[in-house]
């Protein structure tokens, strides 16, 4: 068994079909490549073929998955039949910095944990609160409030066999000035950390230093590259910075940007990381191509360092 297993964070967005039985007929209707990315059967086969044994779903998938499959358990069985496990689900802990929102934030977090349990997953990578624009900068008390919510959700998650991992986006109200303060204000037994390699680098953390400092808190990764590390406040705190007006991409496939991912893998080896590595392809116009490019880079550059 390798130390690292590979998953994909699901960014296909809405997939309308469970399985296209009439694939050739569907193709011939308009002779485009739509048939190749419209059903879960095909997408899970791509994953299995490229050696990604896990999938991390997202809340935006549920509106389609649940009516299509009837239940989380049915989706999990369908994926397992194709060699893919559901490892967890992303969660946004909206307004957790707001004490008036405590009950709602905890309730939503617990419901997400329940959903993950039904999918058979064990990770809930959690954005601690919403964008900096509109609610930042946070006071010390608000950061502590965030930590309180994370601990509370983390306690429930731990009791149900799920690890919550703080997942910080570069544009969150939890940002460079209070990122480490939040981590250190949470209970390490209950709250872990998911390093999104590109997000924290864009925010201004040095990836290798951060991993060295927090390696014992790391539950999993969102592995992706960037060519835009250390963005200024004016970018990170802007209104809706995630999707740029001119199409500039923040995120690239591993090896296509400028991060020292080989250095990271040397550190993973040093600290004997064991667990899931989720690859994330947000920004890609061609997810299948991104998966294949990533598999090539993993096999030729990263796995020879540490597998």
């Amino acid at each position, binding site marked *: 068994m390798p130390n690292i297993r590979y998953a994909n964070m699901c960014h296909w967005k809405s997939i309308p079909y469970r399985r296209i039985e009439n694939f050739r007929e569907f193709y011939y*209707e308009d002779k485009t490549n739509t048939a190749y990315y419209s059903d879960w059967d095909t997408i899970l086969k791509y994953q299995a073929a490229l050696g990604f044994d896990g999938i991390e779903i997202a809340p935006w998938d549920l509106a389609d998955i649940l009516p299509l499959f009837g239940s989380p358990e049915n989706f999990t069985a369908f994926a397992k039949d194709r060699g893919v496990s559901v490892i967890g689900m992303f969660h946004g802990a909206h307004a957790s910095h707001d004490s008036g929102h405590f009950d709602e934030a905890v309730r939503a977090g617990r419901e997400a944990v329940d959903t993950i349990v039904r999918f058979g997953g064990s990770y809930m990578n959690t954005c601690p609160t919403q964008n900096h624009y509109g609610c930042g900068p946070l006071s010390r008390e608000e950061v502590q409030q965030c930590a309180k919510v994370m601990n509370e959700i983390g306690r429930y998650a731990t009791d149900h066999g799920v690890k919550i991992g703080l997942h910080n986006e570069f544009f969150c109200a939890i940002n460079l000035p209070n990122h480490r303060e939040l981590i250190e204000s949470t209970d390490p037994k209950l709250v872990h950390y998911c390093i999104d390699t590109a997000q924290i680098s864009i925010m201004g953390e040095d990836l290798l230093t951060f991993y060295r400092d927090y390696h014992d808190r790391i539950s999993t990764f969102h592995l992706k590259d960037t060519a835009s590390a250390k963005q200024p406040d004016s970018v990170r705190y802007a*209104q*809706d910075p995630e999707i740029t007006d*001119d199409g500039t991409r923040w995120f690239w496939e591993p090896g296509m940007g400028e991060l020292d991912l080989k250095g990271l893998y040397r550190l993973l080896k040093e600290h004997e990381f064991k667990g899931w590595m989720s690859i994330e392809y947000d920004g890609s116009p061609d*997810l299948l191509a991104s998966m294949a490019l990533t598999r090539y880079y993993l096999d030729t550059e990263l796995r020879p360092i540490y597998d």
Partner: protein
Amino acid sequence: MNTDRFAISLDLINRHYQEPNRNRFESKYFWEELYPLIRASGFRSIEIPYEPVWQFGGRSGVPMNRYCINTKYASAAGYRAALAERGIEQVTGVTFDPNLFMRNESLDFFFGAGGHFAGEALAHAADLGADYFAISPSPYYGRAAHYHPDLEDKRESFTQRMTDLLAGLAEKAVAAGVVLVLRNEYWSLYRGEAILPLLEALPDSVRLDVDTASLTIAGIDPAAFIEAHQHRIGVVHLTDTAFVDTHETWKTANPEFPEHRATQVFRDPGTGSVDLAGIVSLLDRLGYQGPIVMSARQTRDPFRALLRTRALLDQLPH
């Protein structure tokens, strides 16, 4: 009939199912490149499908709601100016469906949130100078039945609450100088002619939205429907289909994607079986002067659909 005045709906870009991921659709540049292409294909006016979802989560490049427009263009006037610079002279109409808000067992949530955003969308339509605001008075039947298995038992009370909501919107629409029209998609609680009692319960200012493909799928001849209700029509959507609903797909949770057999329910105009040329001739003969909108809402290739649509219109007698 002068087809130069036909608008095209921005539902041409299906933000949810058209291609893997959708990040390019979320960038402002995509739309600002699109508008001149729309003009180059002979359209001077567009319809906006209002989508509240882009208000949440930092995706305000999608120009489908008031929040996004204010974020990227400061105001509706700023957006209209940006459109005009790119050859789009008018936003003919705004459409709205409440499917986003049918997501749990609470009808109070559905009517509360749906009503709030419908009001926002109507006000946005007025700000954009639109002629009409077209609302779907029902979520997907199948989605509603998923959360409300006793939907048929609730139909009467649901209809009463919807009537009240629409009556309030009708009043606001008159004040804003926008025509409120009711859509009757084939997946609706009020599909086909079931829309008529709802319409009758509303003021005369409220009009019908004729969607040729939806009527066809619901088993209604669109030409006959137009003839019968010509004086109550507020907008015509020229949509095409070759789909025959033999498995009650209209009652499923995602009815534009039939579970038993994958198919493109809404075909690009001119590639389905609806006699769109005949419909245009009929509208001309009846002296219909209202808005006409081309829609390729489920196209697999929006740029091909844009040109296919123009190619179809070019074949019609002018």
